[in-house]
């Protein structure tokens, strides 16, 4: 089953405030517009290297990060732009990084697959599938040893759930009761292989039972479901009650990477995901129904975000490439 096939709504309000709803809507729009813009620029050949887009999965990053502060850490994946934006990374700096400019968050040295902003608790997009899992429990260990109430969130894909690092990390987080939330973004595909083929389990959250921790699967094309489940998981972690596996069923609107022909996708499922089951459209309906945001307010946010993204592209395009002297700086702290 893919989230793209799921319908139905849930009108629970929970602890959502108007302010929070505004933040959530804006972040989701920022991610969507950022990704659509990068898609267009990549097609024109103006962005080098590999790019993996997050459009369609916004409700996961935003619904989880809505509960975090800059002191909480996240680990990310190769599909990391959405996590960066939701965690508060500077959009100009992100765009400049993707363009390889010296003003980028990593001075142009990392690119799309390695955007990081440690000051914001964003421990980096990652080019290695499964690499974020052990890194997240390290951040959890720091919080535990230092006796803070900070949490660590590991965003990882369904593909990584078949990787040894998933099982090693969840087990350790469980035996040490680490404040970690393992957020599996199950978008139905690991690269070009369907989840149902590559994984023997029905649900990634099923592993929670074996490791004796909390586990839940939610419809992650629906922001509210993610928001509520993540809220509970973060609270448990902050109180020292240990880790959670939160499996978020979603859909990857674009291909694995830009240029992917996506012949492995079912066209009907894709159509449904994009048109009727779009997480942003669904949140718009909620926001209106609950009178959090009016149509006009949302249009104003859309326009504001459009200006932000245009600014980011201009900023990136006008920024210089790194100086040749930058080639061998930052290899060590001291040497």
């Amino acid at each position: 089953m893919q989230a793209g096939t799921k319908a139905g709504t849930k009108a629970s309000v929970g602890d959502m405030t108007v302010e929070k709803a505004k933040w959530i809507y804006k972040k989701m729009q920022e991610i969507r517009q950022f990704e659509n813009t990068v898609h267009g620029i990549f097609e024109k050949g103006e962005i080098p290297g590999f790019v993996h887009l997050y459009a369609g999965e916004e409700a996961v990053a935003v619904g989880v990060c809505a509960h975090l502060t800059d002191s909480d850490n996240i680990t990310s994946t190769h599909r990391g732009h959405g996590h960066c934006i939701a965690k508060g990374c500077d959009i100009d700096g992100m765009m400049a990084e993707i363009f390889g400019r010296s003003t980028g968050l990593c001075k142009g040295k990392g690119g799309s697959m390695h955007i990081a902003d440690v000051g914001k608790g964003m421990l980096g997009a990652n080019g290695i599938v499964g690499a974020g899992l052990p890194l997240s429990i390290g951040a959890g260990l720091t919080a535990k040893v230092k006796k803070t109430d900070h949490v660590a969130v590991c965003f990882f894909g369904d593909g990584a759930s078949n990787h040894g690092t998933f099982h090693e990390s969840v087990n350790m987080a469980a035996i040490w009761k680490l404040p970690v939330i393992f957020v599996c973004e199950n978008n139905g595909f690991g690269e070009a292989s369907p989840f149902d083929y590559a994984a023997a389990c029905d649900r990634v959250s099923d592993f929670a039972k074996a490791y004796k921790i909390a586990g839940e699967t939610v419809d992650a094309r629906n922001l509210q479901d993610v928001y509520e489940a993540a809220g509970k998981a973060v609270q448990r972690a902050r109180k020292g009650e240990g880790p959670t596996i939160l499996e978020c069923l979603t859909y990857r609107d674009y291909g694995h990477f830009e240029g992917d022909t996506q012949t492995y996708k079912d066209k009907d499922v894709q159509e449904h995901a994009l048109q009727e089951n779009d997480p942003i459209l669904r949140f718009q309906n909620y926001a209106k129904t609950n009178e959090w945001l009016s149509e006009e307010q949302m249009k104003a946010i859309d326009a504001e975000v459009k200006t932000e993204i245009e600014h980011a592209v201009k900023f990136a395009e006008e920024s210089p490439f790194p100086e040749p002297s930058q080639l061998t700086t930052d290899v060590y702290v001291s040497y």
Partner: protein
Amino acid sequence: MAKQMTYSEAINDAIRLAMRKDENVILIGEDVAGGAEVDHLQNEGAWGGVFGVTKGIVEEFGRTRVLDTPIAEAGYMGAAVSAAATGLRPISELMFNDFIGSCLDEVMNQAAKFHYMFGGKAKVPLTIRTIDGAGFNAAAQHSQSLYALFTHIPGLKVVVPSSPYDIKGLLLTAIFDDDPVIVFEDKTLYGMKGEVGEGFYTIPFGKAEIKRAGKDLTIVGIGKQVYTALRAADQLAKKGFEAEVIDPRTLSPLDEDTIINSVKKTGRLIIVDEAYPRCSAATDIAAIVGDKAFDYLDAPIKRVTAPHSPVPFSPPLEKLYMPSPQKIIDAFSTMVGDNVFTTV
């Protein structure tokens, strides 16, 4: 008989020939076909590997012999090692050589050790195909050239083919070799066209190729850097210096004789390698020549390599990172002790 083929097509051709010849040959890796169990694809592959190199192979041989694996490098590499030890002849694809971090034990401690550790009673006829190389703006975790890491380990054979002709012949040698072999495919070479022999042929390991004869300087170019060496040689020729350019083709075993004999003739050696310089193939070759042909050297051996730094993403930095003909010419200029080449 020969025909024009790309580097990528030559690999595809070699794998098909091997799989037709021996039913024990299987292809295993992440999305080597792609789209497994997707109803509308029936048995068609979605990708044929991330660069489409193995496209069409699943259609010919089916999914029992062409296995898409979960993203689980330690698991499937280990499986390939013991499948090899128990009667198959697997071709295991590691999508990018950088991913060796996720399965080094299986290669370094298992595949490489079985034959020796078990007193010669086990063999591991495994071929690992992997993608290396900078120049694609693929950043620090998808651009490394890690062949030195494997050259360091006894029990492994290491192949760095630079042309469509070579990749086909060397890959076929690898597949039918009884030791574990790792073959490095430079991602920037996939589209390169060249003449490739039709049908089954092999190229022996440990035989370097002299790409260009010369008497004034020996340049060893590793992998695609042989082309950087050839471009530098063309420019040097315009100034009256004839460089001999050698492609070692395999790093383990290494054809020391061809390199040493060339240095005995030219008295000068430059090694061009886009990998990191410390404990590298370039450094290894320099040490071997220093050891065995010191008396023939007229100048210190020079290495033109990447700096001791990860591969940068930003295109201008990546360009600067790579060896270039000018860097080779600059090195030669210091070897001959004057600046006649500053105007080249």
